[in-house]
């Protein structure tokens, strides 16, 4: 094949490429950043090991406890247009009406007070990485008890929350009409998520996409979470690989004592406070070769689908469960990064 080289261009005007686009519009700037993102390796080769953030101190501990130990389904969300934190009450009312209308489509309903569900919007104060991050907020659907004697606040039917932890790269590119909360986590019936998501999409012109976590990012999670210092381990470190074979896929589970995993990590880890791509690869390679020595199976030829540690567990389907209060912000920061990558 011919080598591709551009002959000297005909017009002899001198111009360096960086002179071309000086006063570009915001959209062009965005495109520029996408070009950069696409042309290099998508993820930076090094990341910080999650640290306990100062900002977390003013978080309502009850609310945090509520977020832990639940399985959340992840979505990425484009910036919300004309969302206002001062209208949360109004949003509750409107979303309430919308849900009732959706659920009883075709039937006439009384528009007013008498629903057997209740929608609550509330902010999650302090749930942010930097001061610039917009406030996270929580949406809950509660069932109202029919009997007045019972506690009016019934059980929680569905919960979803929106957050942005260290979302600087996204925040820089949008104007104040938008609220950037790129990470959305939902727990509850999928049909409810659909209705609520639809309402948000219609009201704030945003877009929800399921956020899957590929094997590459799962390995990063495995390494970063193993690197976290945990006071007492609540769960074993476990990996799940999937072997695609017919008629049913075969899963290989690989559980390690968390202290052994930590010891392995410490033997690999060099730069304090940081994790690099080489370290992640080496960590996984060590696990692979150990497994191969015992079972003669090359795990590198299979697909990593789940990682569980004492900090959190994540599934490739985009499901996450956060276990450790201390590293909540750290885990969310990485998920925010993935969500931002998906919407950019």
């Amino acid at each position, binding site marked *: 094949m011919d080598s591709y080289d551009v002959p000297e*261009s005909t017009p002899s005007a001198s111009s360096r490429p960086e002179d071309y686009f000086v006063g570009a519009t915001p959209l062009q700037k965005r495109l520029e950043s996408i070009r950069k993102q696409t042309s290099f390796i998508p993820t930076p080769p090094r990341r910080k090991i999650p640290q306990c953030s100062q900002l977390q101190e003013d978080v309502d501990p009850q609310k945090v406890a509520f977020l832990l130990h639940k399985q959340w389904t992840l979505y990425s969300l484009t910036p919300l247009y004309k969302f206002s934190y001062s209208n949360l009450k109004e949003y509750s009312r409107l979303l309430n009406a919308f849900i009732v209308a959706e659920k009883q489509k075709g039937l006439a309903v009384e528009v007013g007070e008498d629903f057997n569900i209740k929608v609550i919007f509330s902010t999650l104060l302090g749930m942010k990485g930097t001061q610039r991050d917009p406030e996270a907020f929580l949406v809950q659907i509660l069932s109202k008890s029919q009997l007045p004697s019972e506690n009016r606040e019934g059980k929680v039917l569905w919960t979803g929350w929106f957050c942005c932890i260290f979302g600087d790269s996204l925040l820089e590119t949008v104007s104040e009409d938008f609220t950037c909360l790129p990470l959305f986590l939902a727990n509850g019936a999928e049909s409810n998520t659909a209705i609520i998501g639809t309402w948000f999409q219609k009201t704030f012109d945003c877009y929800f996409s399921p956020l899957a976590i590929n094997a590459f990012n799962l390995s990063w999670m495995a390494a970063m979470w193993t690197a976290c210092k945990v006071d007492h381990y609540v769960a074993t470190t476990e990996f799940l690989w999937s072997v695609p074979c017919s008629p049913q896929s075969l899963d290989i589970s690989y559980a390690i004592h968390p202290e052994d995993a930590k010891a392995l990590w410490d033997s690999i880890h060099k730069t304090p406070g940081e994790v690099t791509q080489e370290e992640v690869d080496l960590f996984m390679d060590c696990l692979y070769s150990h497994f191969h020595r015992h079972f003669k199976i090359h795990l590198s030829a299979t697909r990593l689908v789940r990682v569980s540690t004492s900090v959190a567990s994540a599934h490739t389907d985009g499901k996450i469960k956060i276990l450790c209060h201390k590293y909540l912000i750290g885990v969310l920061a990485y998920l925010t990064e993935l969500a931002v990558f998906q919407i950019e």
Partner: protein
Amino acid sequence: MSPQKRVKNVKAQNRTSQGSNSFQTTLSAWKVKQGASNSKNISKHGQNNPVGDYEHADDQAEDALQMAVGYFEKGPIKTSQNKDKTLEKHLKTVENVAWKNGLASEEIDILLNIALSGKFGNAVNTRILKCMIPATVISQDSVVKAVSWLCVDKCSGSTKVLFYRWLVAMFDFIDRKEQINLLYGFFFASLQDDALCPYVCHLLYLLTKKENGEIENGKLILFQGMQPHLQALLSLYKFFAPALISVSLPVRKKIYFKNSENLWKMALLAVKQRNRGPSPEPLKLMLGQANVRPLKRKWNSLSVIPVLNSSSYTKECGKKEMSLYDCLNRSGSFPLEQLKSFPQLLQNIHCLELPSQMGSVLNNSLLLHYINCVRDEPVLLRFYYWLSQTLQEECIWYKVNNYEHGKEFTNFLDTIIRAECFLQEGFYSCEAFLYKSLPLWDGLCCRSQFLQLVSWIPFSSFSEVKPLLFDHLAQLFFTSTIYFKCSVLQSLKELLQNWLLWLSMDIHMKPVTDSPLETTLGGSMNSVSKLIHYVGWLSTTAVRLESNSTFLLHFILDFYEKVCDIYINYNLPLVVLFPPGIFYSALLSLDSSILNQLCFIMHRYRKNLTAAKKNELVQKTKSEFNFSSKTYQEFNHYLTSMVGCLWTSKPFGKGIYIDPEILEKTGVTEYKNSLNVIHHPSFLSYAVSFLMLQTLPRERGGNREKGKKWSWYLDYLFSQGLQGLKLFIRSTEGINYNNQY
């Protein structure tokens, strides 16, 4: 106005006037078209019948249905002996088709008319009404016509009741509702009929908007019966205009209406299923990438593109205590639903209520205009995000188990391309999508659409885009079939054209508006010339890979037909010549049309270069865009080769130099003559037919005689449509004629 502008307009018209399947990449659309014509049979009866297996059986059913509809249209034939039998047969046919595949909206239109016009008896009307099941949608006009039959009282009360029940049940499948909404008053008046009242109430409940609430609720106080259906309607009015309804309504009442849908329950499900598209294929075994969760993507709506709704909803959220007056007359802003014409858009452009979901503009040409001229960042950003995410979500090769939605994705891309053609401008979201998806593309999926997206990449620095896009495209190009190569060349030609149009507009508009790209002309020209060199490189290699295929050469020369005319057609200071690999392949081609095209291009190059030279002389001032003498030298070199071959019969002297010794070794004795116009292999067939046509006196030698024959032959060639050759020879006439022997 400058000639460029006109060129653009004409181009735009051409493009938009083309069929929906072939906006640009006609070649790559071949396959698609074929597919489309195959599916036409199916789509004839049920818009998009998702299951192709029934095709043959359906054809027969279709004929029978046509006959049946024709029968009903004619009305009952009194004289016929076995009238009942025929009637029964046709009724059965209609029922069968209706319940199986649904009826097309035209068929419903006809049959509905018949059922309500009272041509047949009550029993027949009932049966017809019961099987008015749409394949996909019901046209609004049919409903309006049907309602007009109610006014003339041709049908019985029970038929009317059934009709209203049908209307309520099928409400969601009526394509538009504006006209029906105009009949609000008529429906309201029908409330007085006790038998109809419950169903009319339900219909009104579905139809009522804020405006109706205000107008009608005063009258409703008259019906104080408090039947559940009236309560429902009242509660709705009360919601819209609480101040005007003083009646207190009982709480905790959930079901107000009798269920009208019962009769059609199964049919309704079937229609919904049909409208949603084909059922998914069985899941395949997957390797590699992360599984994506099954499709919850289209949460609520049936189509990818959101429905147009004005954003009043959001606005109202903000103001909590809003008076009824404000609510009903949103003064100042112009609701989108009323936007119907371009003058309206112009008049209200300052107070247009924007859609709540910006993506909905894609289906609305007026709003596309708006998007195009508005430089409001939030508007563009909302559209950008929506389109980027939707493309990413819908793209069938981007995520593993998305393949069952191929058709839908193709349609979506078609819509985008239509919008881009309409605006004559590419979307940034599409460019970003290409960056992400091209490396994963197999070169087959939605090829036509995908390559059209390439041709709409907004103008930018070529060297920046190259590693992201064109390098990947080159890999696919070299490893794919000749057809793919041609399609790529075609779309690159269109890309070049779009860039040139954009630049030529931009240069002339610059003093007036703020160009989105702050570029220097030199930088822009540099980018364009890099694109041309890139295509030159692709072409040279492709010609070798495909061993000088004529078909491929056509597409390559088509590209250069654009290139050679940049200076004159677009008024841009750029002349780039073709690489030698292309020039000599075309010159030595065995196909006359290739040689003809080459002649034409050389002629145009000559025109452009002369024009450029003339301008230089006129302007005197050394502009920075004077072409280097190298370009002229290169052109002259080509010209010399060409004249040497075709005209002066000195083929390997100046242009292509081949050592005479080597030429001796080939053993061709008359190599000097063998490439001139008379002996050129590509004109062989012309030479034969010329000889057969003419009864020439036997050669007597003389140079004059020979010269005469030479020009007869040329005239013959020109008369055969070789215009390029004619133009080329005429424009190089200065070259000495007598050298030809």
